[in-house]
């Protein structure tokens, strides 16, 4: 592809050049994202057939009725949202000081080293990191055997391995870098003279933080919230491994409905519902972000 005008005919327009460039990923997105998504939406309005993977092509809303009224699904959706909210809260609240430290207290020449260190967990597979927490918190894990060896407990503690807290800890650890980086970028963009101006105008360091630094870092915080919240709602590996299947989240039940129970329309309806809920929550944050971005230069 060349930007120089061709000798004959009109030069290719910028727009068509652009389309040509985005065509491969667009095709990819269409085939591997849009089509399956459309299929799931389509299936969610169909009726379950008696055979394996059989779907009767009759339009119905009963899947959605069941997905939204059955107490089990409501409870699981609630638990999923609770877990991802807690994970988001912990991750972002813990990530902020790290990002702040690197941005404000690490000398510029050492910042890239720190960022590199922060991304080191990515060198290990997510699955391995989840297992790591199982090893730490498991029935015969590091914590339990350690406490037993010290004579503090006789029997392994069971409440530390199969509970929501363990799941939150695992996920928060896994997503920490994702939260640190956008907050760090937002903090880096803050003109340091603004902080001096805050103090010059009579505010203490703490008040300057609340009146200047924090509002200006909000786009990064909102980005971190979205980056952590959206994938954790749909996570199904952690509940399987950490929760040992005893504390399923919404993604686990979708998987079950689609495969083991073989009710594809119901599974699809739950998936679409979950997507709508996450979409709504995310939209609120995106709008919040837009409000902050609007006033940023």
């Amino acid at each position, binding site marked *: 592809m060349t930007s120089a005008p061709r000798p004959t005919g009109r030069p290719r327009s910028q727009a068509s050049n652009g389309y040509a460039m985005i065509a491969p990923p667009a095709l990819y997105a269409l085939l591997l994202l849009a089509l399956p998504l459309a299929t799931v939406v389509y299936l969610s309005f169909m009726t379950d057939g008696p055979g394996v993977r059989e779907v009767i092509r009759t339009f119905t809303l009963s899947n959605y009725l069941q997905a939204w009224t059955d107490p089990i699904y409501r409870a699981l959706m609630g638990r999923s949202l609770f877990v991802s909210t807690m994970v988001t809260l912990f991750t972002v609240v813990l990530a902020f000081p790290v990002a702040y430290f690197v941005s404000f207290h690490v000398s510029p020449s050492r910042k890239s080293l720190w960022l590199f260190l922060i991304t080191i967990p990515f060198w290990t597979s997510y699955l391995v990191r989840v297992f790591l927490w199982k090893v730490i918190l498991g029935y015969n894990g590091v914590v339990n055997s350690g406490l037993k060896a010290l004579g503090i407990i006789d029997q392994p503690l069971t409440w530390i391995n199969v509970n929501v807290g363990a799941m939150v800890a695992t996920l928060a650890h896994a997503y920490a870098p994702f939260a640190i980086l956008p907050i760090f970028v937002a903090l880096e963009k803050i*003109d340091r*003279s*603004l902080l*001096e*101006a*805050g*103090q*010059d*105008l*009579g*505010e*203490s360091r703490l*008040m300057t933080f609340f*009146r*200047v630094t924090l*509002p*200006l870092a909000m786009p990064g915080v909102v980005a971190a919230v979205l980056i952590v919240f959206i994938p954790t709602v749909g996570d199904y590996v952690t509940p399987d491994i950490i929760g040992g299947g005893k504390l399923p989240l919404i993604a686990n039940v979708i998987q079950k409905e689609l495969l083991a129970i073989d009710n594809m329309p119901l599974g699809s309806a739950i998936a679409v519902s979950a997507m709508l809920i996450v979409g709504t929550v995310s939209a609120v944050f995106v709008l919040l972000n837009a409000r*902050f971005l*609007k*006033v*940023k*230069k």
Partner: protein
Amino acid sequence: MTSAKPMIELKDVQKWYGDYHALRGINAEIRAGEFFSLLGPSGCGKTTLLRTIAGFEDITSGVVMIDGKSMEDVPANQRPTNMVFQSYAIFPHLSVEQNVGFGLRRDPRTAVEKQKAVDEALEMVGLKGYGKRAAHALSGGQRQRVALARALILKPKVLLLDEPLSALDKKMREHMQVELIKLQRQVGITFILVTHDQEEALVMSDRIAVMFEGEIAQLDDPESLYRRPKTRKVADFIGVMNFLPATVLSEAGGKVDVDVHGFGRATIDAAQVSNSHDGATAVGFRPETLTLLYEGQVAADREAPGTVEEVVYYGDMTYYDVKLDGVAAPVRISMRNVFGREVLERGARTRVAWAPGALVLFR
């Protein structure tokens, strides 16, 4: 306009950054109500000194007093100073009036009174009706006005301005210079301006401290600084100064007899002598103190022959580089382009009128 009472006293202020000696014993008194400038090339310590007064930099040793009180251990947010930052530091997440009212949070006045104060401050800087605008949508000149209003609304004892005009274009800069002078007279607050632009300093200041390498080289009013620079370096930094090598012949009764190469003998008053020992003996003079003589004109005092080497035409002025007979380096002479006076060509022979009273002797 100025009184003798010092608003700021600096006593042997020293500042080290590791091995780097940024401020090397600054001693100065800045009077209440004065428009004071710190002038110098970049890296001379002028901004460091300003930030020291503001409280953003700790000093290594020495005393900074503001209004008779030592500022030791007084943080920036408790000093009676406010700053207009070089970047203006307008809060991008706030509106114009929120920016201007930022420092009023703990002010005991009611919200209505505060709003009135904000409106008045905006009116003072010529931004009436801009209060609801988003700060990031303003032009450079408007941002600067917001920064001024935001600082002045707190009625500081001293307003610190860190190269506030350097980001503006020439027209706007000249306009703002005059506005700042008027504003300073109106509010009567001590202004301290940091600038590297000697013209700006001359135009705006009551007094100027010229700084080089962490030291004040000369502290004077603009006219003295321009006419009687104490060192060659100051002379070079403020405007254009021609130098001609000279030899001291004799010295008696407050007069110094010198032989100026290219000009001849002259007697210089002791007040016009600088004993800075920062180079070979020379006399200095400004381009406008010399006049090119046209045919039939006679010098009022003395004259010297020479050749026009370069002509720089500025519209209202023409600068000539003239090589005086017997001198290697040319001197620069400025002439107003009055009606009927032709601009000389390069290579033209000419005569230069000069007077001993305009010479400064550096030795």
